[in-house]
């Protein structure tokens, strides 16, 4: 690695300058280490410096008129110049390789960047790598158990290898302060020690103390810099002011400095009040527990101590702790919700993506090989003039390096974009992040990712440059000088034939599954709502006060919203635990075979609606009747199904009056029977393939059964423009007037929520299409290059045959039989592979409408082989026998 860096620094620099620069870097490195920076930080710094210096060197070399002369001092300017010329002279090769390598590197670097930023990121806090999380793992349920208030207290009191053990609980509430628009905010209810763990002092006032957590203490809050800046105009008199969370007033006692968002991405901190004597063991809030490794302790020694404490707890409280194994984890692991198995899967994915790049590199190698073959004469002359094999191999390596560098930059940029989107999706997925990035997430391309990409470029260049070069320079001596005449004498070994076969087999085996995935994604993307989505605004409404009935307040909220002139309808959906079942669906009176056919049917959605739902959404009841209040009050009341359900489960026969239930599973008995009282229009429609729309079952809910709902308000005209006119604020005010303890989240125009979901789908579809196109392009290009090269090899042989009287048919037959054998073997192997992987994916690839894909790809490969062989074969037939023999 060191040598690689030193070599890189030669680019565009004289030797004394390079030596001095390395000396400066060494001096600075030692100074940093002496100042106490960690080795990792110093390594990251020096890597970034070297990459920066390389970029400057390249820039200078290219900008200066004497650039090439300087470059020659480094890599050998002539090599780079020659490589650039060859790139321009072979635009086809350049474009194909650029696209392929760029896509390969984009995918691999995106994966790497995402893993790096999410799976074990460095915390930007003082000795951040010594902050750890403690968590109970339930070995029976195979999941984490965060109801660990009692264990938290035990760990805090007994552990010596982890100190300052603290905990936080995620909460959210509607925040009101002065004249501001009420806003739903996320709050960290954190034990006082949490601030000490972070080692960041308050900017103003103080942070929380253990006294604040006493039951009788007045409620206090510490706010973040952003809140202080945006809500309080950085006023120093903010201390002592009050803000309300729900209906409770909290006094501001401190402001944290800019950038502080510990424990995740929080801007409000209140004391964690949880009294273990009032809460049963194994119950209470979900806590994230963390602390700092004591000086001298390691994760391993802490784990040993924690395991002993865990065993004692299991013996003392077998009912709650017998299956719990406490673990010491890196701080971000529980927050990112990453289990070891997932990490393994992701690392496996990383390996697969790197393999995709290697497949691409191999293909570039084939293309370069074919080109190298035409330059045998040139190589021979250089050898005759005294160039060593190493010199020539290094020249070809540099050619491949130059070919890979530009696509690597493109790929890095693309990959970075994908990482940013991936991080956004992660933040949206995890409740504890509340849709925003955590404080440890660094933006921009990380030095480690750049280093990884540099490694990939080196590997790609080694495969694409050195492999063909070694092969081309294997036979040495004057015999190759004959190639100057224009013909080539390189023979393709078994390795290259095997490559053609592998290439075709890979395409036939894997591409149909990828195409199927891509088509499914695109089909899903085309699914459109069957209701006027542009008029709808959605919000989540819940209560913080469970003592007074939610139902009445919800009805009052609906009444007041409906009274607004802009509003044309208000409805809500919610779910009852006892009705929220998934599983195989059985319909009474439908033959067992029919029911069995639904086995494994995914995507059946079930949810509770109020009686106005279908009206507000503008969905017609096409048979039977709508749901009413009686359906809601009866425990096993009727359901409405949609058209898609009726078509899929009842084969179009009348659904009304039949009964359906969720079949028994090994863990639970069957659900009660529910009568189908009506059939409604589908919620969504798909113009291309109606089958994509999943069936839906609606049951009736009434407000008094719920503690939280998804509210939908239909507005007159465009929801977007009403939102711009301040509808969200109006809704919050109405909510506050009904009851300050009600909480409203995510007030958004429905189509906005929809487009955020669509973004993820689009991204997956885009990535898949990129991989697909690249692999197909490369397989075809690789097969074409090898085939046409093989046939070119035989030009003389064909010429002689023709001279000796062979007919054109005979000659063509001999050419194509070889093509047929290689492509045929590839197709056969690929078909076997496709059959082997078919059971691994739940979707059918080799049957149904997409059964055509596998033969189509096989046929494409055969066609590519034939076209590749045809051109050179036809040219060979036109060779004059004298011309052919002259070469010998």
């Amino acid at each position: 690695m060191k040598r690689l860096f030193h070599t890189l620094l030669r680019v565009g620099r004289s030797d004394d300058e390079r030596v001095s620069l390395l000396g400066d870097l060494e001096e600075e490195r030692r100074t940093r280490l002496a100042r106490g920076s960690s080795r990792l930080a110093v390594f990251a710094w020096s890597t970034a410096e070297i990459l920066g210096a390389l970029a400057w060197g390249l820039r200078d070399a290219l900008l200066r008129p004497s650039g090439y002369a300087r470059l020659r001092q480094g890599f050998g300017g002539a090599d780079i110049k020659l490589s650039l010329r060859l790139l321009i002279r072979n635009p086809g090769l350049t474009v194909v390789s650029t696209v392929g390598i760029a896509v390969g590197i984009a995918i691999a670097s995106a994966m790497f960047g995402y893993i790096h930023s999410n799976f074990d990121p460095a915390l930007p806090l003082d000795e951040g790598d010594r902050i750890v999380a403690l968590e109970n793992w339930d070995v029976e349920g195979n999941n984490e158990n965060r109801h660990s208030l009692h264990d938290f207290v035990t760990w805090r009191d007994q552990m010596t290898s982890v100190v300052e053990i603290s905990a936080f609980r995620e909460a959210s509430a509607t925040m009101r302060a002065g004249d501001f628009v009420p806003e739903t905010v996320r709050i960290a209810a954190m034990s006082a020690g949490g601030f000490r763990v972070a080692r960041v002092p308050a900017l103003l006032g103080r942070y929380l103390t253990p006294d604040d957590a006493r039951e009788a203490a007045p409620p206090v809050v510490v706010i973040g810099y952003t809140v202080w800046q945006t809500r309080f105009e950085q006023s120093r008199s903010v201390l002592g002011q009050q803000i309300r969370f729900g209906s409770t007033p909290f006094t501001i006692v401190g402001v944290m400095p800019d950038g502080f968002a510990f424990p995740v991405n929080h801007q409000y901190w209140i004391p964690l009040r949880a009294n273990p004597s009032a809460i049963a063991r194994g119950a209470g809030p979900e806590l994230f527990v963390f602390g700092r490794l004591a000086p001298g302790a390691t994760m391993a020694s802490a784990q040993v101590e924690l395991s002993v404490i865990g065993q004692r707890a299991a013996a003392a409280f077998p009912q709650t702790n017998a299956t719990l194994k406490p673990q010491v984890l890196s701080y971000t692991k529980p927050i990112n919700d990453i289990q070891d198995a997932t990490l393994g899967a992701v690392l496996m994915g990383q390996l697969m993506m790197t393999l995709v790049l290697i497949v691409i590199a191999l293909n570039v190698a084939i293309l370069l090989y074919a080109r190298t073959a035409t330059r045998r004469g040139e190589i021979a002359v250089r050898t005759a003039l005294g160039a060593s094999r190493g010199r020539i191999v290094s020249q070809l390596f540099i050619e491949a390096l130059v070919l890979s560098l530009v696509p690597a930059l493109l790929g890095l940029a693309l990959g970075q974009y994908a990482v940013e989107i991936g991080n956004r999706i992660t933040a949206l997925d995890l409740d504890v992040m509340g849709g925003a990035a955590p404080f440890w997430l660094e933006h921009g391309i990380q030095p480690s990712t750049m280093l990884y990409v540099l490694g990939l470029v080196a590997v790609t260049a080694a495969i694409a440059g050195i492999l063909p070069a070694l092969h081309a320079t294997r036979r040495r001596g004057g015999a190759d000088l004959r190639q100057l005449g224009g013909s080539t004498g390189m023979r393709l070994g078994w390795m290259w034939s095997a490559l053609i076969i592998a290439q075709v087999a890979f395409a036939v085996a894997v591409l149909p599954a990828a195409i199927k995935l891509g088509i499914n994604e695109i089909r899903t993307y085309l699914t459109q709502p069957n209701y006027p989505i542009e008029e709808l605004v959605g919000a989540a409404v819940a209560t913080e006060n469970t003592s007074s009935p939610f139902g009445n307040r919800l009805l009052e909220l609906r009444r007041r919203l409906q009274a607004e002139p802009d509003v044309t309808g208000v409805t809500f959906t919610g779910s009852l635990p006892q009705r929220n079942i998934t599983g195989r669906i059985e319909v009474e009176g439908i033959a067992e075979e029919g029911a069995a056919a639904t086995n494994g049917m995914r995507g059946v959605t079930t949810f509770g609606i109020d009686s106005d739902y279908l009206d507000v959404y503008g969905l017609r009841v096409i048979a039977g009747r709508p749901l009413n209040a009686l359906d809601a009050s009866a425990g096993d009341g009727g359901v409405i199904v949609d058209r898609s359900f009726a078509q899929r489960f009842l084969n179009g026969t009348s659904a009304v009056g039949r009964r359906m239930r969720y079949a028994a599973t090994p863990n639970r008995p069957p659900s009660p029977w529910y009568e189908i009282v009506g059939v409604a229009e589908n919620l969504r429609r798909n113009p291309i393939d109606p089958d994509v729309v999943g069936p839906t079952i609606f049951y009736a809910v009434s407000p008094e059964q719920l503690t939280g709902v998804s509210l939908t308000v239909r507005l007159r005209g465009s929801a977007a423009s009403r939102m711009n006119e301040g509808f969200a604020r109006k809704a919050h005010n109405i909510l506050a007037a009904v009851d300050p303890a009600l909480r409203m989240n995510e007030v958004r125009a429905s189509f906005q929520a929809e487009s955020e979901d669509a973004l993820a789908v689009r991204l997956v579809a885009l990535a898949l299409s990129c991989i697909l196109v690249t692999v197909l392009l490369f397989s075809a290009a690789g097969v074409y290059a090898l085939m046409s090269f093989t046939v070119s090899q035989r030009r003389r042989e064909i010429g002689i045959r023709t001279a000796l009287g062979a007919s054109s048919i005979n000659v063509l037959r001999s050419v194509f039989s070889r093509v047929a054998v290689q492509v045929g073997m590839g197709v056969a192997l690929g078909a076997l592979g496709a059959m082997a992987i078919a059971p691994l994916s739940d979707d059918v690839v080799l049957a149904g409408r997409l059964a055509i894909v596998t033969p189509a790809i096989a046929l494409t490969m055969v066609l590519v082989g034939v076209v590749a062989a045809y051109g050179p074969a036809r040219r060979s037939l036109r060779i004059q026998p004298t011309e052919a023999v002259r070469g010998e």
Partner: protein
Amino acid sequence: MADYLGEFEQLVLLALARLGDGAYGVTIRTTLIERTNRRPSFGAIYSTLRRLEGKGLVRSFAGEPEAVRGGRAKKHVVLTPRGRVALRAAHAAVVRMAEGVSLK
């Protein structure tokens, strides 16, 4: 007419003027960090120095190898008289431009 200088070139030349005989990569960078609050990379500094040397505004010479630098020699850099003239001219231009302009 004196040579045209970019902003970073001016800063580097000023660092050289300030450091006198003690100017080399590390000290130039430290001076820039302390006085401008920027964190230029060594690559940027070396690239600028080479450009300035090409214009004849600075001159460089190799020092003795040192253990603290892994046995590598320093490349000392000093201002040439022409560099001093260019720096003076650039500074005067800034002062003239700023005359009578309120930046408050």
